[in-house]
């Protein structure tokens, strides 16, 4: 103890080493596994076939999020029989193996990466896995959280461990003050645009610097959420007073003396001064602007003030081909100003941007305006709790009056496994995390933006620089009411 300075990641890793067999990966203990309907059925089936039990049902929590419809009628009678079977299978698996399930109609239901934090299940210093690549979200609390495949889900159910090779460490420091209108979403889009979608492969990123420390927990979650889009194994942020204030009093947060002990332990987690990282990158927050993705990979982003790039300017043949292909798919011409690109749909939601602050920010922009006549826009809260809170604050009314649809919680059009999808050729301003071909529906064209940028685009009918947006006075009145 107390020799070489350690990083946040190293402290969490070391605390969870069960055994380091010679010549083999480390056996790492997993504190919490989050389960959902899509990536778990084959894992439970594997356990049954092998006659294995779940080692620690108390260290797993399940919910339904990926394929649930987001309309009340749709949820009462799920017409997609394959989806309905998948949900029924999760129900049976949780009952058979003794795992707590937050079912479709429970007040705790929601996107798995939204409910973990809001229930106080996610805590600093934990190891957390889920059969979903956006598990990196939970790293915002200083947990080591990463996405896994279904075979690994089964492995964790059976052993509460995973064999893991130690990743490298990569510190990205965002220093200085964020300009007005620039959000956590813009920070992470800027990072991915800079380092590329494989820029952090094999690494755990620690986000640091004054601009990160200034962010709320929800902003931090947005950033860690998209770590996977830069190829990272996980993203982490050191726990601090903001973290503790968020966790205090939550349902599964420690109480009384246990709380004080927990805060003492969590306070030891931040990287020690002088700790060595394998890689470092420093970004000046003052240079950041609102971003819009224009292509079919999250690295294909540009400032809202820019134009669609020209493939002829690509560095090499392979990049040129990939740009041409992306522009063809997206139906965009090189040189078109991004602010001139008109849209058909708007999606505000997903594990990236569906929390209360995201909805407040979008509502503030939308209040007093009407959604453009050629745009269809929807808001999908991340969880039942977020939905209830938003309704208490009157945000649902602001959205509805502006012409947005107000839906039930779930992953929805982030990946379009439920009925919420784009039609071929439709262009969508989306607060989600992936603009891959067909992600939101075959032939659909996704542009990734912040909640504010999405709300403004819904009203303008095209992308627009949020920094020039006239917020109407009615906004604050409505939101306060």
């Amino acid at each position: 103890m107390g020799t070489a300075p350690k990083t946040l990641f190293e402290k969490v890793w070391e605390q969870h080493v069960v055994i380091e067999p010679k010549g083999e990966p480390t056996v790492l203990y997993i504190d919490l596994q989050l389960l959902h309907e899509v990536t778990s059925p084959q894992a439970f089936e594997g356990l049954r076939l092998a006659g294995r039990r779940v080692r620690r049902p108390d260290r797993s929590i399940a919910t339904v999020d990926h394929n649930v419809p987001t309309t009340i009628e749709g949820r009462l009678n799920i017409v997609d029989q394959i989806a309905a079977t998948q949900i029924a299978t999760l129900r049976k698996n949780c009952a058979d193996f003794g795992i707590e399930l937050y079912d479709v109609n429970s007040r705790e239901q929601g996107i798995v990466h939204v409910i973990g934090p809001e229930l106080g299940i996610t805590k600093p210093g934990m190891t957390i896995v889920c059969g979903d690549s956006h598990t990196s979200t939970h790293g915002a609390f200083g947990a080591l959280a990463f996405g896994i495949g279904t075979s690994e889900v089964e492995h964790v159910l059976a052993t509460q461990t995973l064999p893991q090779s130690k990743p490298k460490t990569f510190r990205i420091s965002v220093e200085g003050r964020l300009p007005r209108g620039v959000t956590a979403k813009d920070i992470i889009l800027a990072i991915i645009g800079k380092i590329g979608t494989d820029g952090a492969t094999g690494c755990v990123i620690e986000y640091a610097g004054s601009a990160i420390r200034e962010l709320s927990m929800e902003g931090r979650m947005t950033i860690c959420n998209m770590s996977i889009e830069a190829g990272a194994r996980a993203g982490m942020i050191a726990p601090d007073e903001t973290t503790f204030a968020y966790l205090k009093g939550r349902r599964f947060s420690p109480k009384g003396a246990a709380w004080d002990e927990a805060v003492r332990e969590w306070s030891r987690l931040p990287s020690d001064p002088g700790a060595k990282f394998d890689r470092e990158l420093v970004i000046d927050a003052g240079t950041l602007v609102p971003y819009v993705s224009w292509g079919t990979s999250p690295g294909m982003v540009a400032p809202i003030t820019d134009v669609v790039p020209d493939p002829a300017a690509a560095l090499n043949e392979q990049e040129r081909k990939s740009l041409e292909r992306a522009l063809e798919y997206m139906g965009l011409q090189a040189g078109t100003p991004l602010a001139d690109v008109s849209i058909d749909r708007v999606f505000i939601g997903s594990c990236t941007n569906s929390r209360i602050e995201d909805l407040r920010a979008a509502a503030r922009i939308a209040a007093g305006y009407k959604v453009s006549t050629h745009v269809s826009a929807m808001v999908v809260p991340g969880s039942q709790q977020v939905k209830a809170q938003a309704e208490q604050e009157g945000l649902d009314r602001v959205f509805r009056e502006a012409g947005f649809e107000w839906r039930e919680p779930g992953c929805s059009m982030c990946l379009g496994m439920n009925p919420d999808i784009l039609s071929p050729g439709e262009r969508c301003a989306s607060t989600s995390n992936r603009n891959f071909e067909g992600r939101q529906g075959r032939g659909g064209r996704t542009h990734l933006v912040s909640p504010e940028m999405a709300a403004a685009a819904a009203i303008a009918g095209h992308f627009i620089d949020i920094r020039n947006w006239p917020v109407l006075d009615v906004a604050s009145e409505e939101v306060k009411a």
Partner: protein
Amino acid sequence: MQPFRTLAALAVPLDRTNVDTDQIIPKQFLKRIERSGYGEFLFFDWRRTANGEPDLSFPLNEPRYQGAQILIAGKNFGCGSSREHAAWALSDFGFRAVIAPTFADIFFSNAGKNGIVLVKLDEEQVNSLLENAKKIPNYRLTVSLEEQTVTDGREFNAKFDFDPFRKFCLIEGLDDIGLTLRHASALDAYEKKHDEAGWLRAK
């Protein structure tokens, strides 16, 4: 898991970078609760035109590549979603090896657990394999995991790096859970102590 030692097979070029798992298997096929039967959905949208007809210009649909068991692709193959369905679809379709300059982390792990060998070669080497597979009819490669080599029986010979433990598991066709359970007593002892850390308890 089917053991992997040496594979001599037809190779098909997929000359694209950042092939994400949404392309390998689109989301509408993730609703099934089985582990098998995903092969027909592999690269579903790329194999079909907008009106649902087979797109004959897509390499996997070209008659000359039928029966290929080795896929050659650009960098960052398998990025995006953690869906193991991507590995299941590749394996069910008949692929036993993918050659690319780099692979995304989660896909890398998923492939290994399904007996698919991921071979990392230099970008230049991959480019020449892509060119060869396009130009030379019936272009076959031999991937030896034991020797860690790729050869075409002509001029192409390359060595590749491979994690020794992963290699051992693939060659023996070993199940990871069984391997971890060899450490059951260490796990029991660790867990007993670890459970005392209330600040790391989920609930």
